Each structure stands twice: as C-alpha cells, then as structure tokens.
C-alpha cells in the first residue's frame, strides 16, 4: 500500500481534494511572545492532499499544530475566507458526482455540513435542556422529519447499538429519557457519536472524542465507529482527530500528521507503516520515518 498521491488523478476516487489550504490569523502589532513585528500567524501552511472515500483518516499532531482547524474547515464550520483568513481550495466530491466548493459562503458550509457531515465534539456536546433521546433526534428534526419518526429512528439506532455491544454493562436504551447531566461522560459521548451517525452522513468527523474517556470506553468508541463504517465500507468515511496516536494509527488507514501547520511528508501517510513507536517519535520531531522517506 502506498501513500495517497493527492496531486495525481490516477490515484483513484477522491472525496476531499485540498489544494494549498492556508489559514493565517492576523495579529495586533503588539503580539504575544514579544515579537512586535509579527502581523500574522500561520495556522495551516499550504496543505494539499486528496482524501479517498471510505477511508479511516487520523489527523495527528501536537497541540497547536492545526489539527482542529483543519477539521473545522473540512467539516464546513469555517468556510468564510475573509473571516477566518482562509485561502486555497477545498472540494468535496459528493457520492452522486457533484462537487461542492466548501470554502464558499456560510450558507454553502451549513448546507454541506447538514447534508453530508456528522460531527462529534469532545465531551459535553449534548444540549443540556433536552433528553438524550431528543438530542439524538435533533439532526433528524433539522432535516424535516416529524418528532415521532425521529424518535422511532433514534430508538432503533440505540437498540442496534446495544445489541452490537451485547450485555457488557448498562445499555444506552436505559438512559434515553434522561437529561445529559444525569448520565456518565462515557454514555454521553456514545450518545454524541450516535447523534452524529443518525443521519447516515457520508463523512463522520470527530474531534478528540475520547479525550475524557477511560481506555475501555476509548476502545469501545473506536469499535463503535469502526462498526458503523464497516456496514458500508466504501461509502462511509471517518476522519478522526486524536491525541492517542498509537490507538489512532492502529485504527486508521491513513494518517495526516501536522507539525506547526505543515503536513509532514506533504501528503497522507499509510497508517500500517507508522505502527511502531520509533516512527511516531520521528514524526513528533518533524522527521519522516526511514521506511517512508521515499514517499517525501
């Protein structure tokens, strides 16, 4: 397996085509770190890559490397170029063949996100005033379904999930009618992931969804996401931002490793070739592992 060559059309189908994506934040003349001459800081520096459909992509990097910024742009939360200092191109190739230029307007971003994307935040992403069931229903309600239908579908999804997990503890179904404040953080996060999946999005994006979870829950979440994708492996793409590098690399097909806003290696890396600790260490220091040098 080779790294995906984003600049080559011959590399196969593409879900996201990213070209020279740059995010630059303006600073005041009296900027931090005593650097009075700095007028801007580069968050993402000319990122170019192609993300294939149906893959599992882990975006890794140290804090401040631009992972969340990249994910927010991919998800359509940041779309307006002038507001966020974004330049470059981001195309989303819809399963139907249509191409959406995501970096258009806020309206384009909203439509794109609601139609194709499921998003999981870190903890506490459920609305506190609604029961867990109603939180699951929100994307369906937003899509125009009735409350009754939405609740039925949400209930079915939770039942399926509980069946999949077997009798390994309390089921989510027991907590459907509780408020978010009445359930544990692990259960909360499972509901959040289910909410992101309930609309059958083409892409599931998750930003450090396991940061507040214990290792068991962490693995269960990964498994849950994996099984969701596995049901339609060619249609469902998962993009995950995580601090748990080893777990993420073990789970992912591809890795986008960011370092100070730059994409290490200039392209996506094959996850199965980054499976050793030494390779990860090298990535942290900004070097490519030996076995990947030829890809640079």
């Amino acid at each position, binding site marked *: 397996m080779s790294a995906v060559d984003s600049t080559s059309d011959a590399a196969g189908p593409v879900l996201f085509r990213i070209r020279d994506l740059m995010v630059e934040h303006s600073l005041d003349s009296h900027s931090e770190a005593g650097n009075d001459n700095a007028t801007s800081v580069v968050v993402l520096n000319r990122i170019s890559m192609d993300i294939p459909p149906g893959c599992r992509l882990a975006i890794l990097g140290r804090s401040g490397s631009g992972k*969340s910024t990249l994910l927010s742009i991919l998800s359509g939360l940041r779309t307006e170029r002038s507001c966020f200092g974004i330049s470059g191109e981001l195309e989303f190739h819809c399963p139907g063949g249509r191409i959406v230029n995501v970096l258009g307007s806020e309206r384009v971003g909203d439509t794109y*996100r609601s139609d194709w994307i499921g998003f999981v*935040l870190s903890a506490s992403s459920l609305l506190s005033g609604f029961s867990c069931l109603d939180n699951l229903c929100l994307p369906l309600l937003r899509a125009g379904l009735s409350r009754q239908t939405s609740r039925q579908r949400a209930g079915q999804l939770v039942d399926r999930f509980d069946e999949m997990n077997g009798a390994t503890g309390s089921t989510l179904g027991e907590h459907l009618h509780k408020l978010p404040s009445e359930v544990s953080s692990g259960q909360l996060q499972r509901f959040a992931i289910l909410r992101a999946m309930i609309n059958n999005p083409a892409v599931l994006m998750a930003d450090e969804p396991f940061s507040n979870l214990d290792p068991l829950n962490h693995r269960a979440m990964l498994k849950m996401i994996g099984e969701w994708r596995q049901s339609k492996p060619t249609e469902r793409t998962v993009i995950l931002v995580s601090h748990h590098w080893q777990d993420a690399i073990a789970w992912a097909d591809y890795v986008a490793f960011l370092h100070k806003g730059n994409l290490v290696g200039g392209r996506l890396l094959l996850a199965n070739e980054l499976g050793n600790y030494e390779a990860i260490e090298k990535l942290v220091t900004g070097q490519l592992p030996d076995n990947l040098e030829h890809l640079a």
Partner: protein
Amino acid sequence: MKFGNRLWFCLTDVFSKPSIAITLAILSTLLSVTTTMVTSFGLAFGIGNVNTHRIESEPLSGCVLVGDGIRTKQRFESADFEHVESFLRQKLPASTGFTGVFGFREVPLTVITSDGSTWTLYGRTASMGTDDRREDPVFAGLRRISTSSATPSADQSALYVSTDFLTQCGLQAQTLPLTIRCKVKELPVELRVTGVVDRLPYRWDFVMAEDIDRWLAQTDDRASIKVDQVTTGTAPTQWWPLLQQVGDGQGEHFDRFVELAGQANRRVNGQRFDLVDHRLSLAMTDAPLQEWSILLRMWIKGFPALDQPDADMLVEQFLNLETGILPEHSLEDDRYDMAGIYTSDLSLMQSIADLASEVHWRQSHSTANDGKMFGRLVERESAEKVARADEQTRTALKIVTGFSFVIALVGSIGLLTILFLKAKSKSSEAGMMRVIGFSNQSITQLRLIEAFVLWIPSILGIPLGIALGKYLSHQQYAGDAMAQQIGYHLTITHALSISLGCLVASVFFMQLSVMICHRSDPILLLER
C-alpha cells in the same frame, strides 16, 4: 425544520430542567402580576377615597348659580323658578339629587380686615325657595356651622380666594399660602389662604361665614371690629368722599347710613336667617362706620361678574341713601337677584349648568334667555370633602405610580440580568447546534421564537394581575363605578407598559444571544 418542531424545541429549551428559564418565566409572571395588581388596587384605593367620603357622610350638595348679570335689578320672580324647576325635572333623571331652584338676594355679609395690603370682603346671603317647606341646603350648612362649638384657631381657618381677588391684592397664586393678619374685636387673628379657586367665586362666602361666626362666638366684647388698614383700591371717586364722611362716624350721612343699613338688613333678612341678621346687626351697631365704607366698596369689587356699569349703578344707589331711598332690590319679597339650582349629586352639576343655559329663565320673556351663569357653589363641607379626597387621590396616585415604577425597575433589572446570563450560556449552545448541522439563520429563528416564548408568561401575568387588582378594589370600593372605570383604564395603561417592557427585554435577550452566537467561533468548542 418544521415550525411545530421549532416551537417544541424552544418550549423544551426554555422550560427544561435545570434551565434557569423556568425561574425567568416565574419571575416575569410575578413581576407582571405584582405590578399590575398593585397598580390596579392602588389606583382604586386612591380614587375610591371619593367614594368613601360619599358613602360615609351625608350626600354632598352643590348649586349652580344663575343670574342675569345685573345685580341691581331683580329680574327673577318665583314664577320663573317654578318654570325652570319644572323644565329641569323633565330633563334630569328622576332618581338624581336635583333638589330645586331657589332665589338669591345679595347683601353685604361681613368684613375681614388685615394689617397688610390684602383685603377681602363681601358676602351674599338670603334665599327664598319656591317652596318654603324645603330647606335650603346651603343655609342648612351655615346653621350647622354657626352652632358648632369648635374652638377656632388659625390652622382651622382656611380660605379659598379667587385669582381675581389675588390680582386685586397685587398677589399671585405662587405666593400661596399666605397669611392674613387682622384683628377681630381686638383679638389678633391669622387667616391662612391656602388655595385659589377659579370659577367658584362664591365658595369663600361660607368660609368667611364660619370663621366670623366663630370669632363672634369667642368673645363678649362687641365693642368694635378694629380695622388696621384701609386700602383705597380703585373705588369710584364720586362716592369715596361720602364714604369718608360716613367713615368719620359723624354727621348727617352717618346717622342716615346707620338707619338705612338697619332697615335694609331687617328687610332683606327678616327673622328667618338669624345668623345673617345677627351679624349685620352687630356690625351696624358696634362697628365703626369706616368698616361699613370698606364693606360697601369691597362689596362692589368683590363680585367678579360685576362690571363697571353695575358698579356705577350701585354707587348711585348708595348716594341715594342721602335721600332715604333704599335700593329697590332689597324691598320686594318675591324678586331675586340670582337663582341657585341645588343638587345633592355633584356629578350632576355640569349637566345642570348645561341645561340652565338652555332654559328660558323668565317666563315673561320666553324668547330670551336671561340666565347668565355665575359659577358653581359647593356647600362648604362638601367642598372640603372633595378637596380632601382629591388630595388623597393625587397622593395615592403618586405612591402607586412610584411603587409600580420601583417594582418594574427592580424586576426589569433582575430580568435583564438573568437574560444576560442565559444569553451567554445560549452562545455555547449555539456552537453545539452549529456542529449538529443548524445554520446561524435557523438558530436565530429559534432564538426569536424562544424570546416570544419567554414573553408569554409576562403576557399571561398581566391579565391575572389586573383581575386580582380589580377583584380587590371591587371588594374594597364596591359601587363606585367612576373610580373603578378610571382605575381600570389607568391599570390597562400600566399593564401595557409592563408588557412592552417585557417584550423589549425578551427582544434584547434574543438580540444579545444572536449577537454572541454569530460572533462565537465554533472552533472554540473544538479546541476546549
């Protein structure tokens, strides 16, 4: 998102536990209920004072005075009054307090002197009804006052004077209250002039009658009523020398004046009106004639309706005293200077005044309306009650308005504080909703609906407050339709103001929330 789902979303969001919105709803409801209830009840309390006085005491009485404008010629006869009375009885509802039409003659009543530049003097009395069996309510009041054993004091002597009178004295309404210092039978007396009454020129007749009666009752020394100062005013020069001569207390004019004045007094008042007779006799026999001169001069000046031709005619009559001719108008028993239309219901006075201007006052000249409105006479006790109730009403209104304002202010500050806190939490929620797939536009729409959902409790609270306030005020002041109607309208005004305030607060909340929502970058949520 369907509208029903949006509404469900907002209702759930606003009223879910542990949302502070429930506190907000309760607070706004309580605010509305309390303020409107206080306003409603308070207004009814204030206005109800009128009713209270009306219920507690005998009915108030008043009189519309009508004359022909020419004082020295008696124009009305008893037959005229019967004709007018018949007309009014046809026009006025049978159940009203219309008492009847009485005739008036005008005579000098008394004099008040002062050591300052302020003088007031004149009086009017004498009344003959078309039916002697009926008691003149005004004089009933006078008799009651005259037999009062109350100890006079300066504080109790409150005078109302007209704007015209103040102007004559070179004073203005702004100088009130002013004190008139004078001596009555060598006793220093202070009168406090507390108010100005426009278009009620005869009201202070009774004040003076009461005060002087008290003074007279207080002392046995009837030797003299000492005058401290005499102002010349604008008395016609042609009779002033005569007054001076009479005032000296000597000579032919003096003797004749005393004689004629006594005759006039007896003829006019007879024995039916002891109070007036007593006072005038006293004045005639004991007072220096200088006071009589003042009395006459001020009598001329004191009538606001008296214009120069009338004054000249009066002077002419006075000059006739030399020759022993009494004024014509004081001699004929069945002719009157003025008519008083009495009613025990003050609210009728305007209707009576309107009708009085329509009726042909003199039967002998049915094509002409010779009735000239002089003003309205309110029986002293009634006037005091009305004035007191008015004052209490105004005070109550001020208190109620102030109290409502404070409640609304405190409540609004609390409301806005909570809304502000809620708006901040809402901005975080908006970020989460954007992550789910909601657009800024749809979030704004939801916030709009939410603002109106928050407004609903306030709207519901207002009619509840009005209902409670009305119930309490009706319990307290049942039967006073006027008070309740005014209170109702004012309460509605207050309630609408509160409602508007709540709406503004809700919209403010919505705007703040949306503003924060739009400015908040969802990436902040991602990077937490």
